[in-house]
């Protein structure tokens, strides 16, 4: 539904040129929710704004619904934009228009008659739960309500794609949740393809099917959300995940971690359990069968949409042979095992 091929964006020219996107390839299939996560300044905003040509890429192709937008003249581009809805961090509602007339705006732009506009706007207000606010002005609404209006407005032209530019970043956690639920609902009910950018892992965790990680203008990692939360492929991915899960070995232990095993060291491992492994008492079996002691330093269970993910940081205490055997045992049972380092045995 959305396909970016080798998209680059450079601001300025010569030695002062800044490269905001570098050879980005991205494919968002029909009906999926795709998240792009990254730190501020990584190029997220540029990326999403290239999809509807708010920013023209310096190179590459942008296809939405099979149409190459980079090649379109302005009038055809405006037609194409009717099929791409967009919502923003700061809502961007017109203060001079009521809720109803904000939602009607894209339809007015398409020269629709007011009776036809009414037929479209009323069900949309119902969908976002703001029928009773139709005649109020944005200034009278809360942040969450404003974003609901913006969503209704973005859906008015019956787009096939919805772009969400940090749509929940200005909202409190509770409101964020309700907006995300609404987006998920729309995705399911209307089969709308959603591309969202965010710096919040919570957003990715709650609704995305796939996630891309952007750093310094490059898409460095792409994975299914379940895989990403189990085992990110890149260091940045791990940093995001650890910061989100707050799953780090205790401070005192980090300082003592050594990269290579010595004669008298124990491995410290990060374990990720998925699927059946979550509900199997693997750790106690491990202790019994391999004869190593397991000291659990941190553990938590996360729900990633309809899946459960167990995460643990543990020290495996035993002789080198035994701990190697234990690691092999864990891998055999389909756990994701990462050795974080080794600590000296206590004297």
């Amino acid at each position, binding site marked *: 539904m959305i396909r970016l091929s080798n998209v680059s964006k450079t601001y300025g020219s010569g030695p002062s040129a800044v490269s905001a996107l570098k050879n980005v390839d991205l494919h968002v299939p029909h009906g999926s929710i795709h998240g792009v996560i990254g730190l501020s300044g990584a190029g997220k905003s540029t990326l999403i704004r290239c999809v509807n040509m708010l920013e023209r890429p310096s190179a590459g192709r942008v296809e939405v619904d099979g149409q190459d937008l980079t090649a379109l003249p302005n009038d055809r581009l405006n037609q194409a934009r009717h099929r791409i809805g967009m919502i923003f961090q700061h809502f961007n509602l017109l203060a001079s228009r009521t809720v109803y007339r904000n939602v009607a705006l894209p339809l007015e732009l398409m020269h629709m008659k007011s009776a036809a506009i009414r037929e479209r706007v009323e069900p949309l207000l119902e969908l976002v739960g703001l029928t009773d606010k139709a005649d109020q002005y944005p200034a009278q609404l809360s942040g969450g309500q404003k974003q609901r209006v913006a969503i209704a407005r973005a859906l008015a032209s019956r787009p096939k794609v919805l*772009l969400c530019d940090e749509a929940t970043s200005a909202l409190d956690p509770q409101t964020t949740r309700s907006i995300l639920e609404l987006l998920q609902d729309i995705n399911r009910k209307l089969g709308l393809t959603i591309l969202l950018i965010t710096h919040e892992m919570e957003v990715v965790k709650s609704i995305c099917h796939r996630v891309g990680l952007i750093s310094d203008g490059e898409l460095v990692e792409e994975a299914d959300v379940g895989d990403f939360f189990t085992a990110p492929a890149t260091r940045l991915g791990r940093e995001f995940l650890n910061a989100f899960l707050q799953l780090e070995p205790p401070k005192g232990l980090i300082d003592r971690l050594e990269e290579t095993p010595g004669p008298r060291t124990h491995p410290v491992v990060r374990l990720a359990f998925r699927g059946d492994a979550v509900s199997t008492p693997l750790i106690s079996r491990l202790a019994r069968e391999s004869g190593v002691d397991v000291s659990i330093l941190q553990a938590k269970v996360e729900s990633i949409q309809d899946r459960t993910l167990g995460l643990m940081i543990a020290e495996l205490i035993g002789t080198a042979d035994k701990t190697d055997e234990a690691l092999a045992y864990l891998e055999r049972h389909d756990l994701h095992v990462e050795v974080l380092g080794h600590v000296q045995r206590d004297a």
Partner: protein
Amino acid sequence: MSSAMLNLIIKATLDTLYMVGVSGLIAALLGVPLGVLLYVTRPGQVLAQPVVSRILGIVTNIGRSVPFIILMVAIIPFTRMIAGTSIGINAAVVPLTIAAIPFVARLVEGALNEVPPGLVEAAQSMGATPYQIIIKVLLPEARGGIITGLTITVVTLVSYSAMAGAVGGGGLGDLGIRYGYNRFDPMIMLITVAILVVMVQGFQTLGDHLVRKADHK
């Protein structure tokens, strides 16, 4: 006070209102579009035209840099061409309008500049043309600011019109100079000033009221 004097005062007041009203109206009709052009042709705006923007900017600045009293006498030939005469209230309307157009344009440009750029972007994302952005987004969103600008213009025109009166333009300025100053009638001077004060207060109150109605912020 004699009824002749009263008639004089009433006529002068109506003349001032006429000069301010006509020049204000024409200046709004021409100045608002000029202000829109000044804004939308800026680099990065919806109809970015750097050369046009520069030229319009320079012309507008020239219009604004000439002191009104100089402008008034400098364009007398032009005033004669338009109004057929260079004295009287109809003649005064010409320089008043010429002075007010760039004034309005700059204030409108400033008001448009206050519209959050995100709104223009949102409209673009909906496939709005530049014309639609101006009509449906920029002007309605800047309505309060534009009315504020027009109020300032009208108030300025009241004082300019008094200046026009000093060189034979009629109105309250003329009355104040001829009767209040030349004939040294402090009563007339006082009444003239009082009427001007009330007039300015009235315009300002009306403007504020309209801004409040226009703004939903």
